[in-house]
């Protein structure tokens, strides 16, 4: 059974399916669900990150503001009031690196994420044609645990870990 599930929130509507699947699995497995977002550092030589208000220096205020936003956005999608099994975490850096680093550190059992990586925010998203973005690719190649990439509302995650199923 899963004890700790990491959902990577990319802040695009496309990953809502992944959140629904992660939430559903966390509720059924009685697991902790970590909602994780990485503020991207576009310039890999400074602590500036991209936020909805433009580029700025990462710091506690930016993190807290984003945590509040993530809480607002995701908590209304959870039936249970004050869901204590959900934790919100924010980091800054290169998304796939921070996801893998966090997953290793927290020893999560499963990573759930959407597939999309947006390179040019001016281009419209093509939800009908999901493809593996750089972060989804790199995370799935390097993660210390299984990774589920969810691209459709029909996808439901199995409760048992692959290893558990094998031993059962």
């Amino acid at each position, binding site marked *: 059974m899963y004890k700790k599930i990491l959902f990577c929130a990319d802040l695009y509507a496309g990953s809502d399916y992944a959140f629904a699947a992660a939430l559903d699995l966390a509720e059924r497995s009685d697991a902790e669900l970590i909602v994780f977002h990485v503020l991207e*550092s576009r*310039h*890999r*030589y*400074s*602590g*500036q990150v991209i936020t909805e208000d433009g*580029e700025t*220096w990462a710091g506690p205020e930016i993190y807290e503001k984003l945590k509040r936003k993530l809480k607002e956005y995701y908590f209304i999608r959870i039936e249970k009031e004050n869901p204590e099994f959900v934790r919100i975490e924010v980091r800054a*850096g*290169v998304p796939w*690196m921070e996801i*893998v*680093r966090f997953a*290793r*550190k927290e020893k999560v059992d499963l990573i759930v994420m959407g597939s999309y990586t947006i390179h040019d925010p001016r281009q419209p998203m093509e939800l009908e044609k999901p493809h593996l973005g750089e972060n989804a690719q790199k995370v799935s190649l*390097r993660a210390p645990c299984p990774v589920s990439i969810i691209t459709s509302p029909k996808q439901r995650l199995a409760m048992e870990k692959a290893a558990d199923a094998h031993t059962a």
Partner: protein
Amino acid sequence: MSTNEQAAVKAATETENKVNTKKIREILDANNGARIRTWLSICARCGLCAESCFFYLAHNKDPKLSPAYKFKNTLGELYRRKGYVDWTFLKKCADIAWGECTTCKRCSMYCPFGIDIATMIATVRAILFSQGIAPEGLMRTVVNYRETGNQMGMSSEDFIETCEWMAEESSEEIRGVTIPIDKKGAKYMYTVNPREPMFYPQDLAMAAKIFTVAGEDWTMPSTGWDCTNLPMFAGDKALAGQVVRNMYDKAVELGVKNILITECGHAFRSALFEGPYLAGYQDGKTPVPVIHSVQLLYEYVRDGRIKIDPAKRIKEPVTYQDPCNVSRNGGLWEEGRKLVAYLAEDFRDMTPNREHNHCCGGGGGFIPMGPEYKARRMASGRIKAEQIKATGAKIVIAPCHNCFDQLGDLNKEYKLGVKILSLKEIISEAMIVPDNLKPEEADEEA
């Protein structure tokens, strides 16, 4: 005031307050030795330094960008007015000291008197820092150094975890790769730029693979692993001394034989030549020898400890970016070229080159000063972009993180169509892995 000037002094305007003349005079007095007095008085306005400066060349030979003008109108004026200056004057100094000079020291080579203009600009930066003036990007790293000992504010725990992660990944390719932490008595204590564990952890993996194949006795320290020194460029000399002491003290504590510096230019400058003075070593000598990666990697290949697969030598035309603090100031321009000769078939040198090479435009703190300075970096980097273009090279090898990032930006800005690579990247790909180090799966297939 131009947009550029506004950007340069943003931090200054944000913290505008009364000028602390006493502090300025203290710094002026402390530096008022024979050296600076001679430099300030001996300059003959010959203009030879002007033609050596890439800022001057990139801006239509604007006389205000000649190094002589820059030091005369900053430190020269501060001495002439005995420190009694106003805030507007300090803002102008900030614009020059950070926005128009990378302290690359090329002008000193062309000055008939050998006036060290970079040192004078560094003194101006120290004076400005004493007034709370420094570019925001550098100020933020200063806070990180103070709190965590490294510029990116990375915790020791995260650093060690990243080393473990990279060792695990690398051991899938080369058997027995480890990243030893705090190994006492090792031959090399490998220190890195925090950009590596933070943004380019693969760099750690590449180094670990190369050291494993070379059979090196090495370690990474759990503290003092950041060999960069941005307080040195921000003008915070006290903290710059502490940063370099962290590294020296750790090397002494572990009893290592050498400190090895990653492919970073200013880290070499800090650790090898400026560091001892910043850290308070009166004899100017480091407590243990300091070696740059360019030197060690060259020796590995020269001595056959790393063998390059002839089939994997780079066929495309290649050029080599001499980082100011590795080549001109560090003396390793020939080692760099000899190493590249092993790695690439078609080497095309830039003009000028070796110790005469131009700064990439990202040194002296320019890169970490952040995006607000990018437009200026790109404008003055035109000289470097033209140098690269003239070689016809498709690959630029840059053994310095600042050069690497600046060249990456120039590549996009000037559509150079080149690929920027580090030495580690090329060597870890092209080296022959001995059979006993190949992963087990490969053995089975064989």
